[in-house]
């Protein structure tokens, strides 16, 4: 999550104080991403240094200092909104690595391990669903943030379900085989070789 661009977006609506920026950021992301005060002011200082925002020259640093976006800041915000996030590089997924490692350990029942992770993820989804259920109908920001988390967790559970089914279907001789020394698929920085 880019705090820098979120603050630029809030300032594109008009000049605001530091404290106000923090409160509006939290309100609009459904308070799921809490910000600390220091993060807001440090980011604002950097934005000012880079010429993307301007502050009241007269006011002291702190919650009452006012900020406004510059033309360069508007350009940066517009560019950022239109730039696709980097989804091409696969993340180093800890859960994938755990399942890959568990397959090689005779003392670990991979099915049980997968179920333990599945249960944890479903419990987390129950909490997010409850958050959405309890939210007021007009809190669209919260619903959007919670939906994103639910779809992300759902995707992980679908992967676990698929891994579970795939490993169960594996013939025993293949299940016990040594992994090839060189992984057949290399994934690095978005380039599949």
């Amino acid at each position, binding site marked *: 999550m880019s705090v820098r661009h979120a603050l630029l977006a809030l300032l594109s609506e008009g000049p605001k104080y530091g404290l106000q920026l923090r409160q509006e950021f939290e309100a609009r992301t459904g308070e*799921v991403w*809490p910000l600390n005060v220091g993060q807001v002011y440090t980011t604002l200082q950097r934005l000012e240094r880079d010429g993307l925002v301007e502050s009241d020259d007269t006011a002291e640093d702190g919650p009452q200092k006012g900020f406004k976006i510059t033309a360069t800041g508007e350009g940066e915000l517009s560019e950022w909104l239109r730039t696709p996030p980097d989804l091409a590089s696969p993340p180093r997924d800890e859960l994938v690595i755990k399942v890959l490692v568990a397959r090689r350990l005779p003392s670990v029942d991979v099915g049980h391990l997968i179920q333990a992770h599945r249960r944890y993820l*479903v*419990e987390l989804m129950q909490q997010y669903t409850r958050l959405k259920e309890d939210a007021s109908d007009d809190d669209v920001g919260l619903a959007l943030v919670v939906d994103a988390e639910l779809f992300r967790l759902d995707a992980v559970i679908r992967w676990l379900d698929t891994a579970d089914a795939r490993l169960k279907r594996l013939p025993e001789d293949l299940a016990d085989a040594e992994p090839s020394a060189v992984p057949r698929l290399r994934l690095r920085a978005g380039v599949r070789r």
Partner: protein
Amino acid sequence: MKTLELRGVSKVYGEGPTEVRALGNVDLSVEAGALVAAMGPSGSGKSTLLTIAGSLEEPTTGEAFVGGRALSSMSRNDRARLRRRSIGYVFQDFNLLAGLTAVENASLPLELDGVSAKAARVSGMEALEQLGVADRAGHFPDELSGGERQRVAIARAVVGDRHLLLADEPTGALDSVNGEAVMRLVRAACQRGVAGVVVTHDAQLASWADRVVFLRDGRVVDQTSPPLGPESLLAPGSRG
């Protein structure tokens, strides 16, 4: 009060080499007002669990209790009456009768149970109102959207004084937003005191339940702990 209880329920189809064990020694209790999801892949026994809970099939061994009464101790007629009066079913493909309007579909279980057409219609309209589709009462199923059809199907499942709601992938044919609306209505029915069981392979649907039991190869292998309040997600510093 336990509205539904399965004790040591097993179900075997076929014999000898063609024998298939669909359920093995399943225990499950659902209290009035609670929504439980049974989650598992295809062939894990989800649908069999639902048909036994709904007295549509008998277990090979074990016992199913609805409202404290053992289904095996009841006559065929008593079980049919229980299904008409106390149990509501919701299916993925809605199963509405094409030749009946929304309100006729919703009031059908009561009419089948001998309630006068007029009284059944009043209850049917009440159920449609609860589900926000009263303005569609005179429309036939093919004049309704998927979301509306499923609301009518839920109205039929909760019409009158039903206390057990059984749903098989109830949001499967709907998009995410309509699916969420359906699950909010199922939750609302449970909050009015109905015990609900939803079987599904879908984690998003299961996450609406108070408790999720995980089915694998006909057995309950695990279940979720009682959920923490959503405020636990909002602890300062819980996310970067």
